[in-house]
């Protein structure tokens, strides 16, 4: 344990920043779904897992990595749309607890199905991009690529939501559901599009995560709670809040991990989360609780 303001501290801060890009991307998808459809996809990280397996098997089957990544994005976008049509739509008017339980059911179903289909082995693509050394600090290229792609994707999504008719309708529906028919907007169609976008973001996250992480059926348990915590900390449904919270949480993890141990990083992050939620139950940027 040593926690001086030296070059290693700076390295931890910068690595936290790189991690934040990925976490922000993951939080964005979940927040978008919640903000628009008012349903929490507890199984969000499991969709990412499906995407990682899809990319893994496509690439192992001879598909070039970029095409495999594109396949993964489309696969999870489709999975998101199917999840909405088959599982969410029938419970849209049910109590929130029922919606949570049903997506929770999907979580365990996907984990079990993945375990049966793919086994419990840890798999990875075996791709190594190497790393860059700056002063005495080292950063892996895969993290840098992940950060850059995640930021670019968020920028594209922001442009989509602020410039296009469908994008503005997606934001509008989160503010006033009932009058959307008066604007000529078919709510069911917007929900379906939003679900596909949410799935697509999970697929993109999967494409980035296969560069850094092993693939196994329970990987959702590693990321799911973290993503959920970030969304709640930022204020569920607040896209900006999720973005900011991702940076806060990953700095706690990175700096805590560098000063003490990785597990301590997570412990401190969750402790901070609990304190904030006691003080501001609606989250940092949340308008509603």
């Amino acid at each position, binding site marked *: 344990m040593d926690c001086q303001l030296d070059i290693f501290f700076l390295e931890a801060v910068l690595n936290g920043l790189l991690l934040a890009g990925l976490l922000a991307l993951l939080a964005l998808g979940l927040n978008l779904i919640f903000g628009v459809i008012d349903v929490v996809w507890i199984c969000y990280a499991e969709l990412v897992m499906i995407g990682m397996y899809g990319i893994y098997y496509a690439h192992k089957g001879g598909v070039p990595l970029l095409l495999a990544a594109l396949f993964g994005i489309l696969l999870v976008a489709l999975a998101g749309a199917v999840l909405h049509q088959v599982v969410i739509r029938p419970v849209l008017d049910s109590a929130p607890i029922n919606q949570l339980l049903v997506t929770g059911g999907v979580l365990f179903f996907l984990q079990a199905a993945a375990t049966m289909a793919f086994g419990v082995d840890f798999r990875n693509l075996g791709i190594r991009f190497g790393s860059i050394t700056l002063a005495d600090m080292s950063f892996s290229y895969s993290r840098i690529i992940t950060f850059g792609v995640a930021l670019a994707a968020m920028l594209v999504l922001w442009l989509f939501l602020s410039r296009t008719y469908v994008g503005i309708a997606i934001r509008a529906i989160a503010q006033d559901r*009932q009058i959307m028919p*008066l604007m000529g907007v*078919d709510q069911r169609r917007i929900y379906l599009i939003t679900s596909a976008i949410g799935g697509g973001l999970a697929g993109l996250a999967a494409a980035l995560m296969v560069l850094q992480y092993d693939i196994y059926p329970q990987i959702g348990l590693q990321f799911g709670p973290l993503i959920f915590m970030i969304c709640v900390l930022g204020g569920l449904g607040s896209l900006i809040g999720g973005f900011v919270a991702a940076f806060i949480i990953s700095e706690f993890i990175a700096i805590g991990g560098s000063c003490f141990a990785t597990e301590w990083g997570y412990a401190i992050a969750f402790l901070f989360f609990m304190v904030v939620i006691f003080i501001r139950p609606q989250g940092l940027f949340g308008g509603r609780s």
Partner: protein
Amino acid sequence: MLELSDIDAGYGGFQALFGISMSVQPGEVVAVIGSNGAGKTTLLRVISGLLPASSGAMSMEGVSLRQTPPHRIIETGIAHVPEGRRLFPRLSVESNLKIGAFIPAARKKFEERLAFVYELFPRLKERRAQLAGTLSGGEQQMCAIARALMSGPKLVLLDEPSMGLAPVIVAQVFDLVRRIRREGYTVLIVEQNVRQVLKIADRAYLLEVGRIKASEPAAELVASDEIRKAYMGI
């Protein structure tokens, strides 16, 4: 233009409208007056499809409205400015206007109509980048009307445009209604402010507990003792 015949509607077991028959001709301003709870807002919600009618027939220029899904009624040329304005508070004024032009036929004419509503309401142009939730009440009503005009409607349904506004602003809002009428829009307006609305309407229907009690030229309703006593407090 708009024809309703024998329309019933309600919420769950509660029936709010009983056998409503009415019509609106092109170029008219028609008012629906009545006290609180008479079913005025319900009537507009039924026409624009927010609330399904339980029986009767309804058509806009020959197109059956009861067989049109709610989100496609706007395509028949009906735009509804709902009670309480219902702007999207965290979208800019211009984004609110853009969503008013969501239907495919309106998207093609977005720039043209945007210029038109900005000319009609210069105040909105000044505030185009501002969040709609930060506008004053009168400006919000302007924005709500402008949003409805963005779809290129033939008939504009206005639900209590003066509600919750200061008296000075109310006069301005009725002035807005005159202006959109002058632009050639047909208007069906629901109001509790009977005195003001009868000044701008050609005809009016009097709605009492879900039934049409009278249908007369506005000038005659103004002169009627019963109306003056019951609704205008004279």
